[in-house]
């Protein structure tokens, strides 16, 4: 059982299972809802593709979908690290 991390803390190429997505009050419409409508839900396995220097956006993959989110949003997505092959 690995520890909880945020998507921002994962390294590129690492996978994580979504534990929770904290609502992002920064937007009128919750980031949570937006991600949900794209099928990015708790329990899904996501792979971090890249992050940019100086707290730039994070790109991650969920199934066939690649999504870029801002760094602050990436810190709201709580994941449990998953070793490749395991659980997927």
């Amino acid at each position: 059982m690995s520890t909880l991390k945020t998507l921002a803390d994962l390294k590129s190429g690492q996978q994580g299972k979504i534990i929770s997505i904290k609502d992002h009050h920064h937007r009128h419409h919750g980031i949570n809802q937006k991600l949900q409508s794209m099928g990015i839900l708790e329990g899904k396995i996501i792979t971090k593709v890249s992050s940019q220097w100086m707290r730039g956006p994070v790109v991650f993959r969920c199934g066939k979908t690649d999504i870029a989110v801002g760094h602050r949003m990436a810190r709201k997505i709580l994941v449990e690290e998953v070793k490749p092959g395991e659980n997927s």
Partner: protein
Amino acid sequence: MKILLIGNPNVGKSVIFNRLTGAHVIASNYPGTTVEFTQGKMKYDHTTTTVIDVPGIYSLEPASTSDEIAVKMIEEHEDAVLVNVVEATNLERNLNLTLQLIQLNKPMILILNFWDETHHLGIDIDHKKLEEILGIPCIPTCAVTGEGIKTFVDMIPQARIPSLEFEDQHRWDLIGSIVKQTQNLQHRHHTILERIGDISVKPVTGIPLAVIVLLATFKIIQLVGEGLINYVMDPIFEMGWKPLMMRLSGIMGSQGIFHDLIIGRLVEGEIDFGQSFGVLTTGLYVPLAAVLPYIVAFYLVLSFLEDSGYLPRLAVMVDTILHRLGLHGLAIVPMLLGLGCNVPGALATRILESRRERFIAMTLMAIAVPCMALQAMIVGLVGEFGIKSLATVYGTLFLVWIVLGVILNRILKGESYEIFVEIPPYRIPYFQGLVKKIAIRITWFVKEAVPFVLLGVVIANLLYTFKIIEVMGNLAKPLITNVLGLPQQAIGALLMGFLRKDIAVGMLIPLGLTEKQLVVASLVLAMYFPCVATFSVLFKELGIKDLIKAAVIMIISSVSVGALVNYLYPW
């Protein structure tokens, strides 16, 4: 009959729309400030069907303002057949919207687009099985090549109310089970396009790639633009049009007010397309021979970039910089469009969420993003002095863009949002689609620009004839001459620049300015005000209060930058 095309963003709805309304006859073009097809007519088998292209949505529970508009469109057209366009390569995510649409209990039909890609990606979908489960026709298509579109059109009368029933809280479970029953994935290696996809968003490889792409973009625009001018448009005007116009000039007696309006003033007994300033000479030459080649080149490259899927990746790479300007990465898209023409650029700022972001983006664009018409003329005017003066103009504009953005971000109230964007897979642009898109944009430019340029030439002539320029020049002398170091006649160019930037630059040619004066004049013309077409879009998008605010910023920054360069430019 009426059909609504509904689906996630970027699943090919608009391509299908073009196929339906264009392939079988009359495409209706509803005029706006830009060519935007949202509604059109399809004629087939003696029936006319109204086709409506609804903006892309992920869900019927709106998560943004544009989602709300789409949901409202679906509600408004109660009697319409719902055509759910689905990306076959991403069935699971797309089915979320499909199931929500199913619950509306309306006649429905499903299109599995990108069917050809599923084969390359090792995805095997049993569309008959899907049809059985959902209880509506499911038709595989490849919209860009037109495959399956005819089958779809034939099936429209067979759209039916879905038979599938379920409780909403089990939606995602149901999606999982549908995908399991209908889709079979084969293991396969990553394709080359997917590898490039990852490379282009990792900083170590993505930043150099972004730099290369942008440099290549400018180089290609320059090469294609210059090539078209030197080998196509100049020969046509010099060898074909000029003899005709010289004959006409002779018939009209080589001088007089009417002659000067139509043909312009002769320079050493000859027509000079840059300087004569007649409606049929300079008025046609500037938009068609000097500017159009660059417009063609620009939209060629931009349309390719758009269709390839690179722009969202570029947005990720430049996000950190744009963040300092109170924008996020996606704002690079309207900025790039603005380099072609500020009008579609300003409209494209609608992809930004907050009013603050849109104000910053439009103000920066109007001041520091020169449109192709302006650039073509600046290159023609300043370029002969070499790369140094061109670099000064472009470098200064870029610096202004950054510095002004940082300042606006500091002083403006309100909030700017972070980037949130789906990154589509790379696709190799489909040639015919690309050609069509470029053709639409060029037609739009010609229709928009040529009348304004002709009008501008007429007005410029009137201003000279009635000595208005002289009067204005005397009034503006303290500012123009003392602060900016320009001759007072330059006021004519500044006045006309409000109508069209390209004619304004043309009016500077006969003044015989020095290198420094040309650099200053180019900068001031670029920055002080956008052209009237852009201005009216800014008015519509921002409202009068913010437009005045933006205009004050424009005047202050153009005068101060012009003065600064005038005092600092070393020769």
